[in-house]
């Protein structure tokens, strides 16, 4: 994948080309949201740190799923009473399959985030700019989780000599650093694909002369820290 030199149309592009040929999108919101959901999930899976929660997207997708479920249930009821045609059955099948795929993406998105929260619970709670990326439910989860971990660890750490019982400091020192709190590694390498032409971009502030010419569909393998801003701006997607 990294060696793909000639920019090839991505599956996302093909979908959009086809859709534009079919005419303007009217009630196509579920489709656009699905591709956004898929991107959100893949980005979340690949990023070493937790990304901002997609409040609006998840709310819309949940509503769409619930609405589509009612449609499917209604058509299945119709099928049961023999009032529907073969086309209706097929439509119900297709809706059901799509629902399953969307639900998978939702589940996987929530799960990927919970994993990261569990790994870095204390870090999330003590850094305000990280905490604000979590949904309200996730913030409560992080807090409750940190508490049950502390309770469990203290069953052993509580027996340690005075000053050594903390799970966030090696030795309790006033004004000492919280040197036992794991943080995500922003220098981990990620693969990413450029979504739009950006021209010459300075990526590394420590090496300002070294710019990269970023064109749509370019693929980079690079430290996460250097493309974090581009990811926030939706100029790149992780892969």
């Amino acid at each position: 994948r990294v060696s793909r030199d000639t920019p090839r149309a991505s599956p996302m592009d093909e979908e959009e080309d086809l859709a534009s040929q079919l005419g303007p999108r009217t009630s196509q919101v579920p489709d656009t949201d699905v591709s956004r959901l898929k991107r959100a999930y893949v980005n979340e899976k690949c990023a070493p740190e937790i990304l901002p929660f997609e409040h609006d997207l998840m709310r819309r997708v949940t509503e769409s799923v619930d609405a589509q479920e009612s449609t499917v249930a209604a058509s299945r009821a119709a099928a049961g009473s023999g009032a529907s045609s073969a086309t209706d059955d097929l439509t119900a099948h297709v809706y059901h399959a799509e629902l399953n795929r969307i639900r998978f993406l939702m589940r996987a998105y929530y799960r990927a985030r919970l994993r990261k929260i569990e790994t870095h619970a204390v870090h999330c709670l003590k850094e305000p700019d990280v905490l604000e990326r979590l949904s309200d439910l996730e913030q409560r989860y992080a807090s409750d989780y940190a508490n049950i971990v502390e309770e469990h660890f203290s069953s052993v750490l509580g027996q340690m000599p005075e000053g050594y019982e903390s799970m966030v400091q090696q030795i309790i020192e006033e004004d000492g650093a919280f040197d036992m709190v794991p943080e995500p590694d922003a220098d981990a390498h990620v693969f990413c694909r450029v979504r739009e032409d950006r021209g010459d971009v300075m990526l590394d502030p420590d090496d300002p002369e070294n710019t990269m010419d970023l064109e749509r569909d370019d693929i980079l393998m690079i430290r996460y820290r250097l493309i974090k801003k581009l990811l926030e701006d939706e100029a790149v997607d992780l892969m």
Partner: protein
Amino acid sequence: SLFSDEASQSAPARSRGMSNFGVKGASLVTDIAQSEKGTIPPYNDELARAVVDESQEHHRSILRLIGDIQAAGASLDEAKPDDAAAILVHHQAVLRNKRALLVYLNERMRRVRQLRWEVGTGLPEAVGENLSHSERSFFTQYAALVNKYQGRRGGVGLNLTLDPAPPRDHKVQVRVLEEYGEIVTKDGVVDLAKNTVHLMWRDEAQPLIAEGVLEKLDDH
């Protein structure tokens, strides 16, 4: 003295006469590191306690050394390099032990969490026997935490343990491995008699497959 006679007699031959600092801690880490992935070996309470007790001994040594320095009329900053080094070694030994204990606890805790996602809220008896009291308590609390987050009220309203992999077919062929009786499905009542084969909706079959009641048949 820096060496406990008792400890040097029970320690492996290679460390007799040499410092046995950190040996017990290393054993504890090895205990969990060498265990089969996906299983949880019995909680090694004896060894964990021994590591904690050793840490307490180091701490007593530190306090003694500090006491000796202050008794001689000096402040800690003015302590001789030998004394300062001795205190530092004991301190680092405690930190090492603490780290070993946490590696042990943390890895076991990770496997306990995994149980909730793979097996559900019911802790299998065979596994429960291997857990410490605190670990069993942690499992119960963690299971409840996940339930709360998944729930319809006050949660995201989605069972997150379903679909560990992307769905391929929305209906699956399954064979019944254990007699399960009748269940109500979206298609109506299905009698899960042992060895019968059914075509079921994947999301209805999946929990039963995870429990071992049904076996997914590949289509060939």
